[in-house]
């Protein structure tokens, strides 16, 4: 099973790298779905079957469908892809890549000092999660429901169409 983890991790890193470097939005979304499915496999071999299922259903299902809907609504054609390709020159990547690499190197340095502990002696069953969720974490569930309600109201209020587009300001 250990090989499964490493293969899925390699697929996840590769597809995530492809997400941030593609010019076509739909290609990026499909790579993001692949990345999330491989992460679901990682969760499964780490002994979190419920989280693996939720990753597929909620992340790769619901959230990605939202993204695909928006891409379809905006009808991003070849013009946008050409513009993206123009923005994707190596000069634009130099600064962000250096900053990310520095932070990643620091993270590796900090993690290098940790012990060689092993994960996943046995899976954590959904029953345990449910007991904890509706026991000590009850308040967190209530807050999550409030957050989702706020997200629903906010998305509805923002996506209305009845506000006219902004007029161009005269100089």
């Amino acid at each position: 099973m250990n090989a499964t983890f490493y293969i899925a991790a390699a697929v996840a890193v590769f597809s995530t790298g492809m997400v941030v470097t593609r010019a076509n939005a739909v290609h990026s979304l499909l790579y993001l779905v692949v990345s999330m499915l491989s992460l679901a496999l990682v969760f499964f071999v780490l002994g979190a079957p419920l989280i693996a299922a939720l990753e597929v259903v909620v992340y790769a299902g619901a959230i990605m469908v939202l993204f695909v809907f928006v891409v379809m609504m905006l009808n991003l054609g070849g013009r946008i892809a050409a513009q993206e390709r123009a923005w994707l020159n190596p000069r634009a990547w130099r600064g962000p890549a250096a900053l990310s690499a520095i932070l990643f190197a620091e993270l590796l340095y900090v993690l290098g000092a940790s012990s060689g502990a092993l994960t996943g002696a046995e899976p954590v069953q959904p029953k345990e999660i449910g007991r904890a969720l509706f026991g000590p974490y009850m308040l967190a569930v209530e807050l999550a429901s409030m957050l989702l309600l706020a997200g629903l109201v906010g998305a509805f209020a923002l996506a209305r169409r009845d506000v006219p587009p902004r007029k161009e300001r005269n100089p």
Partner: protein
Amino acid sequence: MTATIPLMHGLVLAGTLFAIGLLGLLARRNILYILMSIEIMLNATGLAFVVAGSRWNQADGQIMFLIILTMAAAEVAVGLALLLRFHHQFKTLDADAASTMRG
């Protein structure tokens, strides 16, 4: 039937994904890609929680993932609604177009 990998390998995977998401967030100018990079970073954070929960065989890590998942869902709904409104007003997805708002 679970893998017993060193804790560090799982955390390094989470850190790698987070760094890639951060790179995308910094380098791209399209709002759609910025939102996708945020999703990648949130997902990587959740992975770190699940790896730690798996190390100590506790459910708490997975509950944290559930909370992050809820937050990501709410965030992406509001973010995509903002993106639709942005495209409606500026006819582009270039984040630099918003600098004319002088906010």
